[in-house]
């Protein structure tokens, strides 16, 4: 069976520019040394990866390891500098919850807008509105403006909408970072059901217990390099033992 994602020798570098870019600095750069004002950082270096359909993969590593860059490249939001990438599916990329929601729109209006951003049609969201608001515990707030909601209510609304997304491949970046304990439990119950499903998940997170519970495999990145890829328990264990910078185990 062909993998849903195939990555070969994938590399990505970012220029880190010091100072503001303006017309003046652009003109100056074209006259003097172009690299004087910036240096390059390796976000990913020679990453190889095969992800099969239906697999749940956790991507772990310290801040700046390249987790988000990897997900953004798979999502098509960034182009790699080198390497090969094949993605054989439609993709949903969720980087935090509530992106695109607007403070001055109501809860209902935001649910429709947020759904549209992730490919849900207005009719689909409207038909599911009662259940959607009930799951988010926001039934009494349907006409309230988003800015009157707490961050927890906001996250619940966004997560509730994403439950209706029907795609084969989900890329989640720090999906549960803003959640309090009770909301986390609700989310975990959703993920527990999805664990048995045929959808593919690639989840970048610092929540190691989520990786061991939800994911079969894990990828450990460090300064853009693949340190380990294998069974979630083993990779997480190696990551913890190394304190984030250990040797390659597979």
């Amino acid at each position: 069976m062909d993998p849903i994602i195939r990555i070969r020798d994938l590399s990505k570098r970012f220029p880190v520019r010091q100072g503001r870019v303006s017309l003046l600095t652009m003109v100056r750069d074209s006259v003097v040394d172009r690299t004087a004002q910036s240096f390059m950082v390796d976000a990913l270096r020679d990453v190889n990866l095969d992800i099969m359909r239906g697999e749940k993969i956790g991507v772990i590593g310290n801040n700046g390891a390249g987790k988000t860059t990897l997900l953004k490249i798979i999502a098509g939001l960034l182009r790699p500098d080198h390497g090969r990438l094949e993605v054989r599916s439609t993709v949903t990329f969720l980087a935090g919850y509530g992106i695109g929601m607007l403070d001055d729109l109501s809860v209902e209006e935001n649910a429709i807008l947020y759904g549209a951003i992730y490919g849900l049609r207005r009719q689909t969201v409207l038909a599911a509105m009662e259940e959607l608001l009930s799951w988010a515990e926001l039934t009494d707030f349907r006409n309230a403006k988003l800015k009157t909601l707490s961050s927890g209510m906001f996250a619940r609304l966004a997560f509730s909408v994403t439950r209706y997304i029907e795609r084969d491949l989900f890329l989640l970046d720090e999906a549960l970072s803003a959640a309090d304990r009770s909301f986390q439990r609700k989310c975990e119950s959703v993920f527990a059901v999805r664990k048995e499903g045929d959808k593919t998940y690639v989840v970048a997170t610092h929540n190691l217990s989520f990786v061991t519970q939800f994911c079969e495999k894990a990828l450990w990145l460090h300064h853009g390099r693949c340190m380990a890829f294998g069974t979630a328990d083993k990779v997480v264990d190696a990551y913890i033992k190394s304190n984030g910078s250990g040797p390659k185990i597979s």
Partner: protein
Amino acid sequence: MKEIKDDTVNRNRSFQTESAIIHSLASYWNLTRELTLAQIKLKDQSTILGFLWSFLNPLLLLCIIYVMFSKRFADQTEHYALYVLIGLVHYTHFANVTTAALPVFSNMRQLATQTIFPKSLLVISVLLSRTVELIITMVITMGIGFATGVQQTWALLGLPFVLFLQMLFVLWVSLLLAMLYVFVRDIFHIYQVILRLFFFMCPIFFTINFVDTIRTARVVLLINPLTHLMTYSRDIILEGQLPSINHYLLWLAVHAVLATAILMLFNRIEPRLVERA
């Protein structure tokens, strides 16, 4: 290590069935509609007069221009106030859309950099939300024309075609500016100056005949697409005449080619825009 080429990023193109492509187009249309509706709902929401400002702005500007220039131009131009108003409606739409679209990657940075959809939809939704205002102000202008004794004819049916041409023109300019802004932020300030200059390069409060003797000014007016759009609308509303089909088709072809080319360029460099946003 192999340098990446277009064919090395294989993003499910060969795996998309016809129905999947249609589904994508439908969901993009759905998103465009929702983004447009959200912007319409939010515009002037916190002001007392709300949506009325869309028409009050050109109307107040009309009052100033009329006081200043009516003595000079009113006796040469029949229905001078309406003549100026039509020009202002076209110019205001152009200025509003392009100014709002220019920093769209910066204003909607999270949406632009962390979600998957063609980012040109952000510009298109700005255009559509402001075009609703254009349509409303144009209808009000026609109403004023009717109330002040301008005879309305079947030529009014040609007005949607003029507005469509205006949208095409504003679309490619907006896409171009939104791209440029990502690379050079100074464009925002430069463009404010250009817009002021552009106001005087359009026949808003004077007629084209006014610059007959100044060759350069006449050439500038004639190559300015807004001049022709204003002329079309004035011919239709004030004279009851449709514009020449050949002339219209020529401009339609020009704007369609430019809009298509710039949209393709926009889509092609979209990952770079996302990276730099």
